[in-house]
């Protein structure tokens, strides 16, 4: 088998002296959707941040598309086609919807132009001149996804896309993620709502206290509620 698109091997990350990630190993293949599950504070967000170079890795290796990107600055990693949809959306609140999209244009070229993104996410087209800070949570999530798309990513790192959204809007967001999957973009999806993420994921990892405690096919994990319960705690499986 050829090398996966993203290959994280033995990743350790600290915040100051506190160890957050301990020997995290995972991979994402071309066009594959991989769920990264776990409770609050398990290290999911830190994993994404380390991959993107926003938080420096203390040990381990991160390879993407044949490059060792472990110590690369974030902007270089982004330019290789790694899109980021962060937790809490992180819009540029004082800029318009359109300007938020323009910021992600990086000259990489590809099928995702701003007009095409707006065509795909018609809600954003209506709101193109509105300040991002005045969009609703769901609209901001769409914009965050649209913004990541404009950079024509081969790999999307998506952090808690359902957080703080009404169930109907969450459905909408996941429908769009499903459509993205069809276009062949690889996704590493961090989600607290395990059952939701497992619906669209091919494979899943479960993190606990900075360690990978489970790795396997998403469908198998989804079918095994007891397993989810032991891995992630009762309340998650009860949803």
């Amino acid at each position, binding site marked *: 088998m050829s090398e996966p698109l993203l290959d994280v091997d033995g990743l350790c990350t600290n915040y100051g002296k506190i160890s957050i990630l301990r020997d995290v190993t995972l991979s994402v293949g071309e066009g594959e959707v991989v769920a990264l599950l776990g409770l609050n504070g398990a290290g999911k967000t830190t994993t994404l941040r380390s991959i993107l170079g926003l938080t420096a890795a203390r040990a381990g290796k991160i390879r993407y598309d044949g490059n060792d990107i472990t110590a690369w600055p974030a*902007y270089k990693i982004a330019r290789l086609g790694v899109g980021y949809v*962060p937790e809490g959306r992180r819009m540029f609140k004082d800029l318009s919807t359109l300007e938020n999209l323009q910021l*992600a244009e*990086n000259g990489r070229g590809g099928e995702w132009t701003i007009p095409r993104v707006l065509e795909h996410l018609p809600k954003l087209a209506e709101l193109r001149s509105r300040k991002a800070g005045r969009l609703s949570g769901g609209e901001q999530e769409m914009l965050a996804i649209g913004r990541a798309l404009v950079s024509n990513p081969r790999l999307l790192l998506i952090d808690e896309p359902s957080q703080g959204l009404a169930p109907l809007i969450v459905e909408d967001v996941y429908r769009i993620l499903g459509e993205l999957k069809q276009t062949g973009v690889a996704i590493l999806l961090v989600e607290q709502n395990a059952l939701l993420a497992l619906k669209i994921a091919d494979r899943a990892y479960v993190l606990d206290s900075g360690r990978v405690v489970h790795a396997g096919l998403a469908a198998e994990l989804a079918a095994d509620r007891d397993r989810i319960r032991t891995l992630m705690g009762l309340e998650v499986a009860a949803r």
Partner: protein
Amino acid sequence: MIHDLAPQIFNGLVLGAFYAIVGIGLSLIMNLTGTINMAHGSFMTLAGYLAFTMVSRGTSFWFALIAAPLIAVVVGIVVERTLVRPLYKREPFYSLLMTFGLSLMAEEIYRLIWGANAVPFSPPPGLASAVSLGFMSFPKFRIFIVIVLVIAMIGLALFLTRTRFGLRLRAAVQDTEMIAALGTNTQLLYAVNFGLGIFLAGIAGVLAAGMLGLSPTSGNALLMPAFVTVIIGGMGSLFGSIVGGLLIGMAISLTTLWIPAASEVSMYVLMALVLMVRPRGLFGEEGIFG
């Protein structure tokens, strides 16, 4: 009365334009990186002296007006890359102290090169005369100063709102990390932004040299009013800096007319009044230290 008042109001406008442009430069640098650039006045002085040297060797004033600020920008970017950059991750206090030390060093260096006394730097002959407006006459050079500074401000506004780079700068002020995650080299952004601030200071420096005189400390004399400008206008607001600059320009100018001894104090009184009513300044969105 009008014969006293009108020129003084116009002088206030000219002074205000200086404060505004220097304040805008300070704001640009402060907003993006949190650096309080105490050496800002030194870069003004540097551009002034460079222009003085160029003109006294036969270069045209017009060339010097652009070239001297550009050389100051090169020096500024070198300073930013080597001295300021390592301090970005620390509290603002560190870069404040460093740039303050730098301004003291610069002052001594200027003294060594150009002497301790003020040097004569006069406006080009074409601008040396005065225009009569009927009720008052006013030096052409001061009118020219206002025009150049207004053009510089409009140019900056267009750069920030109409170019891709300007858009990235505005975004980076809000969230530096996210802009990096979208593929922008933030270190390059910092350097260009610093250079932009120095360019504005440099232009003001050359013009101020022709109007207010040129000595090793002349730029620093404009630094305090420029800080007050930023505080009155509100941190983070470039428009606020323009309003703040004009307000204290007027305040200083008019108190000079009526209570000359209090002219220096007037801007601080104005600042205190503004802060009592609006702790974040007139157009500020964040607290001064927030």
